[in-house]
């Protein structure tokens, strides 16, 4: 029983990390229906930015966090400008290829300048852990979990309740009609990338601290997992991304705990496929039948 509870904690903290990356992913997707493959790499840049400012400039956690979010936010805007904006009216799969191209460029430029080997972080956050009955939780785990929840709520608020959020949703349903309302579509999309990428930046520094290990290709697997999480939760849905991330984290943990670590990913994918067959647009995705 205590093992089970401990595994739940493990699953939640792994899941929060996936969720944190998935949030930005799903947000960008929700607005321009683009699989931003470079999202995982923006997250990697976040981790490296924090590495640089903390190691070489001696920043502490919060200034480093802000720096990461700003740098990644701007990087996101830049990527959108260069690689996605010209393709906004092309087939989506075309933009997917530029996203892959951008992803290569970011990964290997980082490797070029920073080297491809792993880097480690200075200890930025206390890693004290405390015993809660039979389970052990570290402060870092709590940080990650709370930050994820707060960011999700914040995002949900921005999208549902603010003027900018309404503009984002309007752009996502009908770009030209949005223009006729006086909405600046370009700025709105840039804003979306700004927020989504800043979130990835936050994820980058948190993961860097938590695992103490970063490398230029670190964004690939979590990027993919976050994509899976976003799809699982219903791509485009903010709470869906959160649930999807937590689910994937929890499923991986439970497969290891009570199944076989050998087949971890296989089983997680199998569950995913079954869920999609039952619910073809993910857990919270709108099951919209096209109106005929």
């Amino acid at each position, binding site marked *: 029983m205590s093992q089970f509870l401990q595994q739940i904690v493990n699953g939640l903290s792994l899941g929060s990390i996936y969720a944190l990356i998935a949030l930005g992913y799903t947000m960008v997707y929700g607005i321009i229906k683009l699989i931003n493959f470079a999202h995982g790499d923006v997250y990697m840049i976040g981790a490296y930015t924090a590495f640089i400012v903390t190691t070489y400039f001696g920043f502490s956690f919060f200034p480093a966090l802000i720096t990461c979010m700003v740098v990644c936010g701007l990087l996101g805007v830049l990527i959108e400008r260069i690689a996605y904006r010209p393709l906004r009216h092309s087939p989506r799969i075309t933009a997917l290829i530029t996203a892959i191209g951008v992803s290569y460029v970011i990964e290997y430029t980082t490797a070029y300048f920073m080297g491809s080997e792993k880097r480690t972080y200075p200890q930025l956050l206390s890693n004290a852990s405390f015993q809660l009955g039979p389970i052990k939780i570290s402060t870092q785990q709590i940080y990650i979990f709370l930050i994820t929840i707060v960011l999700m709520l914040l995002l949900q608020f921005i999208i549902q309740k603010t003027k900018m959020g309404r503009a984002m949703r309007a752009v996502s349903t009908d770009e030209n009609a949005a223009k006729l309302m006086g909405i600046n579509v370009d700025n709105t999309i840039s804003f979306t990338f700004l927020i989504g990428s800043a979130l990835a930046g936050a994820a980058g520094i948190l993961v860097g601290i938590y*695992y103490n290990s970063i*490398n230029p290709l670190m964004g690939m697997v979590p990027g993919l997992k976050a994509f899976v999480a976003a799809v699982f939760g219903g791509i485009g849905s903010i709470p869906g991304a959160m649930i999807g991330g937590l689910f994937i984290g929890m499923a991986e943990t439970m497969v290891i705990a009570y199944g076989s670590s050998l087949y971890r990913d296989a089983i997680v994918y199998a569950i995913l496929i079954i869920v999609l067959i039952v619910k073809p647009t993910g857990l919270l995705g709108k099951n919209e039948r096209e109106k005929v």
Partner: protein
Amino acid sequence: SSSSTGKEETGKKLNEGDTVKIGLNFELSGDVSSYGQAERNAAQLAIEQYNERSDTKFKAEGVEVDDKGDAAESTTQAIKLIEEDGVAAIVGPATSGASIATYEVATQNNTPVISPSATQVNAMMNGETPYEYAWRVCFEDSYQGAAMAIYSADTLKCKKAAIINETSDYGQGLANQFETTFKEHGGEVVAHEQYNAGDTDFASMLTKIKDSGFDVLYIAGYYSEAGLIIKQAREDGIDCPIVGADGFESEKLVQLAGKENLNEVWYTTAYTTVNASDELNAFIDAYTKKYDQAPNMFSALAYDATNLVLDQLEATGATGEELNEAIKKANFEGITGSFTFDEKTHTPVKSVMVVNQVDGVQTEATEVKVD
């Protein structure tokens, strides 16, 4: 240009002052590029040092290619090196899969290939016999796995082992051999888990095995994950001995795991800075100077592999069959130890050292015999 099979042509004599090309086929991009790059750097250093010497007969030139960590690409690039560039020998690739993919072409074209770190069991074998032109300067996984199993059972007096291995050939090879030998020496394996290269979260695995009652944890994998596993295990209160293989050999292990967590840690290796020889120290200095970072075991192995080729070229003044024969007969003294090749397996006969870590510092190195 040269013929496509090369069968009839078994090598040529070199004239003094000739420039000899050496192929450097490494993983320069992709998931395992950090190994490939470390080895490429060291190989280039060896060539540079060779050219700086005044007592040499030839000039050497390293021709780099990127096998992207992919076996098929590795074959393609080996052919390019042989056919287009006419290299005398190839150093690399780092990983077994990519290395094995070049043995057939190398042998067909009488061009020796020396892998610094292809440790996979039977990597050089083509059925019962080895590929004639395939060599490596590291020992094979089973050998290390056995050595550590013996050390754990006999020296550390452990009875129950837990194994965590990477899902790669390296991890599986080590783990399988460790398990077999450990059982032979009266031990028992009570838990066995696997992870993928690149994983960072091992909490659930550790929580799961924690209560299985093991008194030694064998991690069959590379420092990048092993460092994290050690850290997470120690923080999780697992304080029994943790043992591993040469994949631990890197400065980064200390950074990743944290000094305070690197106690009661042992691993097998052929490369240790404990009681380093002058040659080794010179290499470390030169490498650090040139690349602004410390070398690791992989760089050291690549340095040896390159020097092995350069030495034999210098000695024979020939390529092809003659060069290969010289390699076969070589009695090489390198920074990772002295060795000769076992002709049945094309693998060096090298001693395994078990290195102990205390507060992240290598303290002592003991030689272990496997029979």
